[in-house]
């Protein structure tokens, strides 16, 4: 579904993405793992077209995404730090997104809005929100348009355990519908029940892209966190 | 008793008139058919009455002291070839004609009506249309030219004459005439002791009024409007200009009034409105400019450094782009009690006179004088900045070009 071929990106002298080639398919739930500054977020932004690679290309359903924008209809994106127009209320932001993105064929998925109880906060301005509530808004927006692909950058950071569970359940439910889920997280323990594949990046390079079973058998560790730790210590 | 005497006096006058001066009528079924014949027949003191009609006569020469009077404005036509009326005798009256289509010749200076070396000639109530020169007085004295309406349709300066042209004349009265479309509306050269009043000179190709070497003349209540280069007066002393209007003289080299080598003169109560330059003065000395109004001119006045001892009192300066311009660094002229709408001073003792001097000249006007393309920056912020700086610390503008006693209120003129 998403194929990245030899994608490189440099910020000044820093090589953030170094010749990354990845193939992501429907029904997979891929964990994007790596230390801070390994290029995970840049890679995600490249898929979204927010960062334009210096070389290499990315295709979405077989089409090159460069200068394309229509493919983003099929993506729900939850950024690491949700930044929204500060003067708008939650309601206005959601309405605006509906206004911009909604068309007759998509069925709105308001599960998370309800599960997070955002209905009661609709009149709150974005600038008054806590980090956690912001994340709730981000998550709700990512799932709202029932997209085929979900890209979640540190989805559970800042969420309380209850909200975190709600979100995880939602991700599992969507995965079961055959959607592609791309997820980055530092908290590896959370990913255990979710992921089918692991992409491990370090210093802009792709270290490996394996299925979770293969990671487990290779390392002999059951827990993802242990498995990764054993890889990193090598 | 008084009435009786009066009646008898009038009666006797009428008797004398009829007995001494004959009346000759011209026209179809009148005494004679042509004006030429009438003049041949006439004696000094006779009256020739011309009845309506078109008279295509070559060059009517009046060499006797007669009155040539048109009734209901007969037309004298020069067929674009001739001078129509030439007056070569004194005490002649030419009145009530329409004189049209003169010939054109720069060699002979053909005019509609021309006076040759005569005195006490009166030219009045004529309409001069499409002529080379209009009314031309050559070596005349004590003549009156009044209530004439002169029009020409000339294009270039070279192939056109002047409306009222006087040369080497004295004690002339030019009154209430209108001149349009000539080279110069009114032109004087070597004309002295004359009075020019209530004339309108507009839309002439070069100057509305142009005079040189014409001393001790007085100009009252004339209007000079929309002429190619305004009014130019040169090499003359003893000029009085009172209550004239100089307006709408636009153009790159246009003046309301150009004074060149003028001295000992008096300019009062005139209005200079919307001219490129209200007054341009060069080599002018000892003139008094009093109680004039300068409104909406580009420069109200430009005083070249060659001017000295001029007095500029009690004038109103309103809405001019520049009040005063000059080219030198010294000023020998005196400004006093003028009202300047750009004055920003104060009057603590409330005597109506500003407590700080007004400098009517701006640094920018000096810059433009030296470097004309700087005009491009007119009204830009940098110019304002320069002018303000210069006002606070004058360095370049003439130190003594200032009005020490500026009026706080507009003067009622």
């Amino acid at each position, binding site marked *: 579904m998403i194929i990245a071929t030899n994608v490189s990106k440099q910020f000044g002298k820093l090589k953030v993405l170094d010749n990354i080639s990845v193939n992501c398919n429907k029904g997979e739930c891929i964990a994007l793992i790596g230390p801070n500054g390994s290029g995970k977020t840049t890679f995600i932004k490249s898929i979204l077209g927010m960062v334009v690679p210096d070389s290499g290309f990315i295709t979405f359903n077989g089409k090159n995404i460069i200068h394309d924008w229509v*493919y983003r209809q099929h993506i729900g994106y939850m950024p690491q730090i949700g930044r929204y127009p500060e003067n708008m209320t939650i309601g206005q932001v959601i309405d605006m997104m509906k206004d911009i993105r909604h068309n007759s064929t998509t069925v709105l998925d308001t599960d998370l809005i309800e599960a997070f109880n955002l209905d009661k906060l609709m009149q709150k301005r974005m600038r008054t929100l806590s980090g956690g509530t912001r994340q709730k808004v981000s998550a709700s927006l990512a799932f709202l348009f029932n997209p085929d692909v979900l890209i979640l950058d540190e989805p559970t950071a800042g969420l309380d355990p209850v909200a975190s569970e709600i979100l995880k359940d939602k991700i599992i439910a969507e995965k079961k519908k055959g959607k592609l889920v791309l997820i980055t997280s530092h908290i590896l323990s959370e990913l255990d029940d979710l992921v089918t594949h692991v992409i491990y990046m370090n210093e802009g390079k792709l270290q490996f892209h394996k299925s979770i079973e293969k990671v487990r058998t290779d390392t002999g560790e059951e827990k993802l966190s242990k498995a990764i730790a054993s890889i990193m210590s090598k | 008793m008084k009435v009786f005497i009066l009646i008898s006096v009038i009666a006797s006058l009428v008797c004398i008139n009829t007995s001494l001066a004959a009346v000759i009528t011209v026209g179809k079924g009148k005494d004679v058919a042509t004006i030429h014949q009438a003049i041949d027949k006439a004696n000094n003191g006779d009256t020739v009455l011309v009845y309506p009609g078109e008279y295509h006569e070559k060059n009517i020469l009046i060499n006797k002291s007669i009155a040539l009077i048109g009734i209901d404005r007969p037309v004298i036509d020069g067929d674009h070839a001739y001078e129509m009326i030439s007056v070569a005798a004194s005490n002649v009256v030419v009145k009530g004609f329409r004189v049209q289509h003169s010939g054109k010749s720069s060699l002979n200076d053909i005019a509609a009506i021309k006076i040759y070396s005569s005195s006490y000639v009166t030219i009045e109530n004529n309409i001069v249309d499409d002529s080379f020169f209009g009314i031309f007085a050559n070596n005349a004295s004590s003549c009156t030219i009044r209530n004439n309406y002169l029009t020409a349709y000339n294009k270039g300066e070279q192939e056109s004459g002047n409306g009222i042209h006087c040369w080497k004349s004295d004690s002339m009265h030019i009154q209430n005439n209108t001149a349009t479309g000539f080279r110069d509306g009114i032109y004087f050269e070597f004309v002295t002791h004359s009075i020019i009043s209530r004339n309108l000179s507009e839309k002439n190709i070069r100057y509305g009024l142009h005079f040189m070497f014409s001393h001790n003349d007085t100009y009252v209540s004339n209007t000079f409007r929309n002429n190619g280069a305004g009014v130019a007066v040169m090499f003359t002393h003893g000029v009085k200009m009172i209550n004239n209007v100089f307006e709408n003289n636009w153009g790159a080299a246009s003046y309301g009034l150009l004074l060149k080598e003028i001295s000992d003169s008096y300019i009062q109560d005139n209005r200079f409105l919307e001219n490129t330059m209200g007054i341009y003065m060069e080599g002018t000395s000892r003139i008094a400019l009093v109680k004039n109004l300068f409104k909406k001119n580009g420069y109200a006045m430009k005083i070249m450094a060659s001017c000295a001892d001029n007095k500029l009192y009690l004038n109103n300066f309103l809405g001019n782009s520049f009040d005063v311009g000059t080219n030198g660094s010294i000023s020998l002229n005196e400004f006093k009690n003028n009202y300047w709408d750009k004055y920003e001073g104060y009057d603590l003792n409330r005597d109506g006179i500003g407590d700080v001097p007004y400098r009517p000249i701006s640094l920018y006007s000096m810059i433009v004088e030296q470097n004309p393309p700087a*005009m*491009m920056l007119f009204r830009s912020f940098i110019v304002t900045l320069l002018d303000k700086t210069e006002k606070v610390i004058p360095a370049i503008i003439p130190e003594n070009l200032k009005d020490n006693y500026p009026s706080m209120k507009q003067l009622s003129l």
Partner: protein
Amino acid sequence: MQKILKYVVVDILRSRIVLAYTLFLLLISFSIFNLEDNPEKGLLSLLNLILFIVPLISIIFSTIYFYNSSEFIELMVSQPIKRKSIWLSLFGGLAVSLGVAFFVGAGIPILIYQPNITGFLMIIAGLFLSVIFIAIALLSSVITRDKAKGIGIAILLWLYFAVIFDGLVLFLLFQFADYPLEKVMVGISSLNPIDLSRILILLQLDVSALMGYTGAVFKDFFGTATGITISFSVLILWIVIPVFLSLRKFKSKDL
């Protein structure tokens, strides 16, 4: 695109700065026309205001607005929307808001007190200057990542167009005083939209002052239909080129 434009305009209006700007212009315009007994002189004072304040407000406000809406831009970029639409909506929203602010604040008083060709030209020039300086602001801020640096550059740019450029021209004129520069000046004036607008209005306002050969040359050019057409084309270029360049930059900008 219209939808985003709508959100940009609503967002700008909500900030109330534009409202304050409008009221400020209204206050100044009416007080100028009421204090000056001569409405033409009022128009002249207003000219200085338009040439000075309007570019300043336009460039600073647009720059700050751009940096303050970085969140909004980021959000939009991750959505299925063309970057071109986002950028043009941003530009359009600023142009509409500041244009309306100028029209209400200065245009309406001019139309009340000086409903003639000069007044009309002045409104057009003011609108052009508003939009041109929005375009310049967007270009400078899309290039500069840092907000403080961006605002600094905006102020410098304004200073350049409002003052420094004219100073350079004056310097140039004196350096090359021996050469006939009148015709060159016509060309040079098109390098600065403020100068160009000023000259266009002045030729309507007090021609008599632009005298001498320079005046004649300027009038020969700017007074004709061709000259006016060229002048307005140049003003339009002053909008199109910065918008085009900034759009190109924005399309490949990493967010």
